[in-house]
Every structure is written in C-alpha cells, then in structure tokens.
C-alpha cells in the first residue's frame, strides 16, 4: 500500500459527507453535494491510476472532469428554469 492509495482511500472517505448532503436539504443544497462529490471523485480517479500504475486510466478522470462540468450545468439550468 503506497501513499497514493492511502490518499485515494482518504478521498473516498471524503465522499461520505457529500453523499449525505446529496440526500438532505433542498434541491440546490443537494446540487452542491453533487458538484463537490464530482470534484473529489475526479481527483480520486487520478490518484487510483497512479496507485495501481495504470496510466491509461487517466482518461477516466479526464472524461469525468468533462462530464461533471456539463452535467452540473445541465442540472443548474434545469433547476433555474423549471423548478
């Protein structure tokens, strides 16, 4: 177990408060939990790729970073327009 894996596990633990926030409160507060969770998850994928020495897995983090930006904007637009 190297330092990258330990940090990745710590990042996964940091996702628990985001998950709790996603399940409680108003829709905008849940959205904050979702967006923060996506930021932490992207860094977790980077760290896991380095921990298990699989450089092609950086593409997963890249895809998640792109899709979380687009998905967050879609959610924001929906909440602003329709809720």
């Amino acid at each position, binding site marked *: 177990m190297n*330092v*990258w894996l330990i*940090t990745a596990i*710590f*990042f996964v633990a*940091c*996702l*628990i*408060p*985001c998950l*709790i*926030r996603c399940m409680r409160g*108003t829709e*905008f*507060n849940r*959205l*904050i*939990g979702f*967006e*923060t969770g996506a*930021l*932490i998850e*992207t*860094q977790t994928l*980077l*760290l896991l790729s*380095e921990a298990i020495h699989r*450089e092609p897995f*950086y*593409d997963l*983090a*890249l895809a998640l*970073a*792109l899709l*979380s*930006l687009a998905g*967050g*904007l879609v959610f*924001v*637009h929906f*909440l*602003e327009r329709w*809720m």
Partner: protein
Amino acid sequence: MHIVIDVLLAIGAGAALLSSLGILMVRDFYERLHYMGPTGSVGAVAVVAALLLKDSFSSSSVKVILVGVLLVISNSVLTHATARAGRIHQLGDWKPQKGENIVTEKASPPDSASRHPTRARHSQHKRSGK
C-alpha cells in the same frame, strides 16, 4: 522529492476534507457554496502537481494537466452558475433588489464623480461612513 510529493498530497487531502465537512456543517446556501472552492482549486492543483513531480513530465502529463485545468474551470463556473440559479429561484431575478443595500454604478448620484466610476465608489463609501 518524496517529501514534496507527500506534502502536496496532504494539502490535497486536507482541502478535500475541508470541502466535504464544510458543505455538511454550514447551514446557509451561499456560505456552503464557498466550500466547493478548496478542493476545486487548491486541492486539484496540489494533486496535479504531485502527479507531475512523480512522473517527471512524461507522456501522460498532458492528460493530468488537462484534468487540473478542467477542475479549476469547472469549479469556478459551477459555483457561479449555482449561486445565480439559487438567487433566481429565491428572488426571481439575480440582479440586486430594492432594500438589499448593494452599491451599483447606476445608483450613484449624477454629480461630477459619476463620470469616474472609481471616484464615485470612493465618494459613496465616504458618505456611508465606511
């Protein structure tokens, strides 16, 4: 070099912990938005810097840098968009409302200072006693 990488990873982990606990503990919506900042800016830059130091700028470094840039951009864009949507949801409009005591350029009096926006702001601060 290993110490530097460990310190950068610790900074990233601390930023993630601060963000996750902040959005859980803080009660106000706008204050809670601020806690997206540490992991999206400081944490992302620290983790990307640690990866770049470890790999010594190899072929995969371009992807890592791209992920870091995307994280910083998406953090700021999503924070602004979420705050704007929350304000529209709450008040019906994102512009300053009456009685909110927000100084705008249009609200400045039509004196000589209004031709100079910076001077107008200074004169308004003086009048309000701040």
